[in-house]
């Protein structure tokens, strides 16, 4: 029998699970021989309250050696599942940027979350008078948390989505009882684009025009997108996305937006990037919506609601 493994997803999109599938044919022996999956809602019918749903009100998960969790923690059910996983799994892995840094859903941390969730039920297509549901559904937490804000995590593998090769490496290293071999550098360190040094750029531009490049030439012949004047989060973002010799977005000839989170685990991508721009003589006021530099790493208190400006009431 393989290593008992349990999978869960919290506030997530299932992209990490698809990335796991993208390991391809090598996944077949992993799933059928090396691992013994004991719980995994996306592929397996194990239930929280007994298979007929009549076994009490306390959520039950099986014991496992390895637990893999995707998604951040945004409601009471996520928290209950996370705590039960921690209790039942010897090694707990946070997979993907939502689990490690909050990911895109943690953009909600930048605003008054409850008011915003209420407003979702007041859009122009929604029946007038509708209110946010509050029966059966789990209550929302005050903000979206990364897993390590709530329980101890043994291994973090970021990415939106994480690189299938690295997911496979993590699983195989566990089976071989060794530390995984994962990248430690920045996206820039893995980027083959041509750098010519500081240029005449003193303003950054929005990505409303394509990069300049010759499509017949390899990426190594394209000039660095930062040097072309686009905001590219490569300098402050952890490496790992490159699958064919270039970071994934650069492969699409599009600037990086930071989906692997900061290079240093406790880093702040917005502050680091603004510093990098300023030290290169770029006017940081030319950045529109600098807070979205934290779009993948808004947990850990990085993104908070903007302070309300006090408005003096008219007498």
């Amino acid at each position: 029998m393989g290593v008992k493994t349990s999978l869960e997803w919290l506030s997530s999109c299932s992209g990490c699970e698809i990335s796991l599938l993208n390991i391809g044919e090598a996944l077949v022996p992993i799933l059928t021989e090396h691992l013994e999956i004991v719980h995994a809602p996306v592929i397996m019918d194990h239930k929280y309250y007994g298979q007929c749903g009549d076994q009490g009100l306390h959520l039950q998960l099986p014991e496992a050696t390895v637990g893999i969790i995707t998604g951040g923690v945004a409601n009471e059910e996520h928290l209950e599942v996370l705590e039960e996983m921690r209790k039942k799994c010897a090694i707990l892995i946070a997979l993907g940027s939502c689990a490690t840094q909050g990911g895109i859903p943690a953009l909600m941390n930048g605003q008054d979350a409850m008011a915003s969730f209420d407003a979702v039920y007041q859009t122009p297509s929604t029946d007038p008078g509708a209110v946010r549901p509050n029966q059966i559904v789990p209550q929302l937490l005050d903000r979206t948390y990364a897993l390590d804000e709530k329980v101890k995590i043994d291994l973090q593998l970021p990415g939106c989505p994480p690189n299938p090769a690295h997911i496979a490496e993590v699983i195989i290293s566990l089976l071989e009882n060794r530390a995984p071999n994962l990248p430690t550098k920045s996206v820039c360190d893995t980027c083959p684009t041509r750098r010519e040094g500081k240029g005449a750029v003193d303003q950054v531009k929005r990505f409303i025009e394509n990069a300049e490049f010759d499509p017949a030439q390899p990426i190594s012949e394209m000039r660095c997108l930062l040097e072309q004047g686009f905001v590219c989060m490569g300098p402050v973002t952890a490496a790992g996305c490159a699958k064919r010799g270039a970071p994934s977005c650069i492969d699409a000839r599009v600037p990086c937006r930071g989906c692997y989170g900061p290079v240093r685990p406790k880093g702040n991508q917005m502050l680091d990037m603004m510093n990098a721009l300023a030290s290169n003589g770029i006017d940081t006021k030319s950045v529109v919506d600098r807070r979205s530099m934290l779009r993948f790493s808004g947990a850990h208190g990085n993104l908070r609601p903007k302070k309300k400006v006090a408005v003096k009431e008219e007498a």
Partner: protein
Amino acid sequence: MGKVLNIQPITRIEGHARITVQLDDAGNVQDAYMSLMSLRGFEKFIEGRPAEEVPRIVNRICGICPWMHHTASNKAVDGCFGVTPTPTGQKLRELLQVMAHINDKILHFFFLAAPDFVLGPDADYSVRNVIGVVKAAPELATEVVKMRQLGQMMIDRFAGKAIHPVAAVAGGFSKPLPEEERQAMLRDTRTLLDFSLYALDFAKNNVFNRYLDVIGKLGVITTGFLGTVDRNDGSLRFFDGKQRLMKADGSYIDFEGADYLDYIGEHVEPWGYGKMPYAKVWNEGFSLDLEAPKGIYRVNTLSRINVCDQISTPKAQEALEEFRAAFGRPAQATLLYHYARLIELIYACERTIELLNWEGITDTNVRAKVEPKAGRGVGVVEAPRGTLIHDYTTDEQGCIKAANLIVGTTHNIGPMNMSVKQAASSMIKDGHYDEGIMNKVEMAVRAYDP
């Protein structure tokens, strides 16, 4: 009051949901619900973001169908900025969006749904899954894994990212398609087309014919249907067209996606985070009553197959004709979603080949000039799980001021609730229920591929 059965989580679906079955004192079903358990609030947290960034944020709504959100969002941003994409830019978007349908359908049918049919709905849960399928039918399973990977990688190679794409941009596409890449895609898609024809044959022999009795009963309800069809000849369309809203009697009205607010409303119940869209234009209100539903229509594969007049590609059209001869139009049986899914798989392959053979597909003029400004745009595409609507309004800076989204699966929440209630009430009697019955109730949800 009797027992409450709480099937949680609903498994082998692509999200967080639960089924609650309320029994009466005699052990019969008093009521049953399917509740969506997650709420993330994309409509609100994209406010203030530069609109051209939004197509690479909202793709995170769904990691299985990110190309759908990515392309619908780009269309909406085009609308806000008043830009018309270059013809090649628009065709490249369609190419990738249609290609993404291929993997999605292989994934759903073989990885998520097939265990119920290959191993049987009553098989033990520990083997009733894709790993059990691999062990029971290793050759088929290996082929399926290969085919899904082939489809996924032809997107990944060209567009950099298959999951959470970035290559469609306001005004078009970020890079042109090189000729050698086009050739490779053609070769791979022809292989996938062969596989899709095999898949339909396999399913006809091993699933649809074997389970005709179950198909005729499980989760069957009577509703209307919504989908996208060609503006001129009513053919099935995934990327662009007019919306067609059909009543259960087969009569229909057509409308432009941009006018959706005049046709669709969203009802909210307190027991699930998902809203329930309904046909406001029918002026009959909203009701999930099984005998006399009001305003209820369905989306996704079966719905598209029902509303289209024909399919514009030969092999898929052949399959559609056989389907209609057997089940009529509109077909209502819920499990036929699986059959329709495999017809669409054939269409997706054939349409991909058509697009790759379009004369301008490798042209290098892939992006029109874009200027951020105030405006409104509505982007509609057919996602695997149904009609997807992104509606944005921007301010003078071209940043999002307001957004409204109706996501594919959402349209089916009302109908899924009806199917769950129908399935549970017809099978749970006098306090008798077992694992097989509870799984069949879930199968009524799984057919919708939520």
